[in-house]
């Protein structure tokens, strides 16, 4: 906060830190403000333009997902996972499918795992593009956002080819996938990767060394390493502060052991470093994508496990047993053996975890979703204390709060 130094002997009637003569005002930022990235609210006490104290509120889009998880079957719950972090719905789908498969001890075939990895990295690129793009829009760099937005639309077209939907994909099934990747998907993916690399370089040249961008972001919204650990920051936000943690590398699942990628780590933990880490992570994700496309081979996409295998349509329509199987699968669901597991994966924003406790039924006893946004949003108040209100917008955009994941 700006400290005012008064000449000696000079006496003020009011508090010298009070720039405007005790005219502090309380401002409600959100829940429907365009700079708030979703239905979340910050109530700030301002001294002039400086935020003296603030508190955050959320829950405006609370849809009781954890309660639904206890009342829907494991198969039914897949569609609800889309609506967590809707910018990277595929990562939620994959993590959820993995956590139930882990409880059931089901291993999915190789092709399925590679396609899931492609899904995760595509979603990560989309999520990061939207984060840095919107962050730039908030600070006035509109055209930058459009560069990324085009590639993002192209990525959504790829996802549409996989799952038939663009945003809420519901692509994974427990023990498999909704559908196989179409013929020639690898080629299209590689062409997209090549084009996106060029676009990312162009975006890098356009904004990274821009003077105004640097003034607006360097040293703004600083959250150092200790703060990050106190508030359980994970993902790019933690890496921007020097915490070398990436669950893809540290706790490898799927085939992340077999692909090569680097984990970018920055030091200062300000808005600019978060931007740099995300930009570099897009490049690394593109590397992973091209490796995945190379290694994608023909094969089955479903685990051969009768408990979770959804019967083929021709079997359902032509045999009595198939019809019964289909009916039982969708009406009562399959049973998951008793046990508990916390399965976490490096989502685009940080550690996404599903803590599922099963008591042997066809729906969970407890379905806990650990979304990274909750923990990131919690740190926002102390991050922006003493900063200008315009810097709040920069800081909020850079930690990428997604309301769907925040409210669950």
């Amino acid at each position: 906060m700006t400290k005012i130094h008064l000449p000696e002997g000079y006496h003020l009637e009011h508090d010298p830190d009070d720039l405007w003569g005790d005219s502090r005002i309380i401002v409600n930022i959100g829940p429907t403000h365009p700079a708030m990235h979703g239905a979340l609210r910050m109530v700030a006490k301002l001294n002039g333009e400086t935020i003296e104290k603030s508190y955050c509120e959320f829950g405006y889009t609370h849809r009781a997902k954890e309660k639904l998880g206890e009342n829907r079957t494991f198969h039914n719950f897949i569609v609800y996972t889309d609506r967590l972090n809707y910018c990277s719905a595929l990562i939620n789908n994959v993590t959820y499918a993995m956590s139930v498969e882990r409880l059931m001890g089901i291993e999915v075939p190789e092709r399925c795992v590679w396609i899931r990895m492609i899904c995760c990295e595509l979603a990560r690129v989309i999520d990061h593009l939207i984060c840095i793009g919107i962050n730039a829009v908030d600070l006035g760099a509109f055209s930058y956002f459009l560069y990324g937005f085009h590639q993002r639309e192209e990525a959504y077209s790829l996802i549409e080819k996989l799952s038939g939907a663009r945003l809420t994909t519901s692509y994974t099934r427990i023990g498999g996938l909704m559908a196989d990747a179409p013929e020639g998907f690898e080629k299209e993916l590689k062409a997209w990767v090549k084009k996106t690399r060029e676009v990312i370089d162009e975006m890098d040249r356009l904004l990274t060394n821009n003077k105004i961008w640097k003034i607006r972001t360097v040293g703004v919204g600083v959250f150092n390493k200790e703060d990050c650990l106190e508030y359980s920051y994970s993902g790019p936000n933690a890496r921007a502060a020097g915490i070398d943690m990436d669950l893809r590398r540290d706790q490898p699942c799927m085939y992340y052991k077999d692909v090569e990628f680097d984990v970018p780590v920055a030091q200062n933990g300000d808005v600019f470093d978060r931007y740099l880490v995300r930009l570099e992570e897009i490049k690394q994700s593109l590397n992973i994508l091209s490796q995945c496309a190379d290694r994608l081979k023909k094969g089955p996409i479903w685990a051969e496990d009768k408990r979770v295998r959804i019967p083929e349509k021709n079997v359902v329509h032509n045999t009595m047993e198939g019809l019964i199987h289909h009916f039982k699968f969708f009406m009562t669901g399959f049973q998951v053996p008793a046990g508990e597991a916390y399965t976490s994966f490096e989502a685009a924003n940080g550690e996404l975890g599903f803590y599922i406790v099963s008591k042997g039924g066809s729906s969970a006893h407890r379905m806990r979703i650990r979304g990274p946004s909750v923990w990131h949003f919690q740190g926002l108040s102390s991050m922006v204390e003493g900063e200008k209100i315009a810097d709040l917008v920069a800081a909020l955009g850079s930690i990428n709060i997604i309301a769907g994941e925040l409210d669950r």
Partner: protein
Amino acid sequence: MDIRNPIPTNGGDWLARFQEIWKKQVEILQQKFGDTIEEVRMPPHAPTDVPVIFVKKDQIVEVMNFVKTSPEFDYNFLADITATDEESDPRFEVVYQLFSYTNKNRIRFKVRVSEGDEVPTLVSVWTGANWAEREVFDMFGVRFKGHPDLRRILMDVRWQGHPLRKDYPLRGYQLFTEAEPVDPGLLE
């Protein structure tokens, strides 16, 4: 086939990598805290992915401080705090998921708490425990002793009941015609 047969592509190597470490850590905890450690569920004998250590609720802050700071443990990252409604006595289990980003290791602590009882807050150990504990209070009605700001977090402040309790109905809607008021006291 269940969690006791971990699958290679998802945590299949955890037992090989961490089992000895976990055993050693549990031994140290049992030596240091004695009766405070009520029960230990160890994979692969128990159906869980990582060891579940039940701690008496009054000592939870001590134990957490120890596992956070001592070099053999180094569980420096609070992954999650949540609770489960067990519909028995004691009714709730508060669950703490810890991760060590230096040792890449996970562990889980649990505290049994009866309805109406209080659990000491972890805010002094991790500042970030604040909102997670508020959510547990909001959803289950478990109160945290010494918590600086134990208000509802997802539901409206005027909400009746705790939605994630098993006896709360699935469609227990409550409608409010006026918006939730701003609390200027929180800005002091």
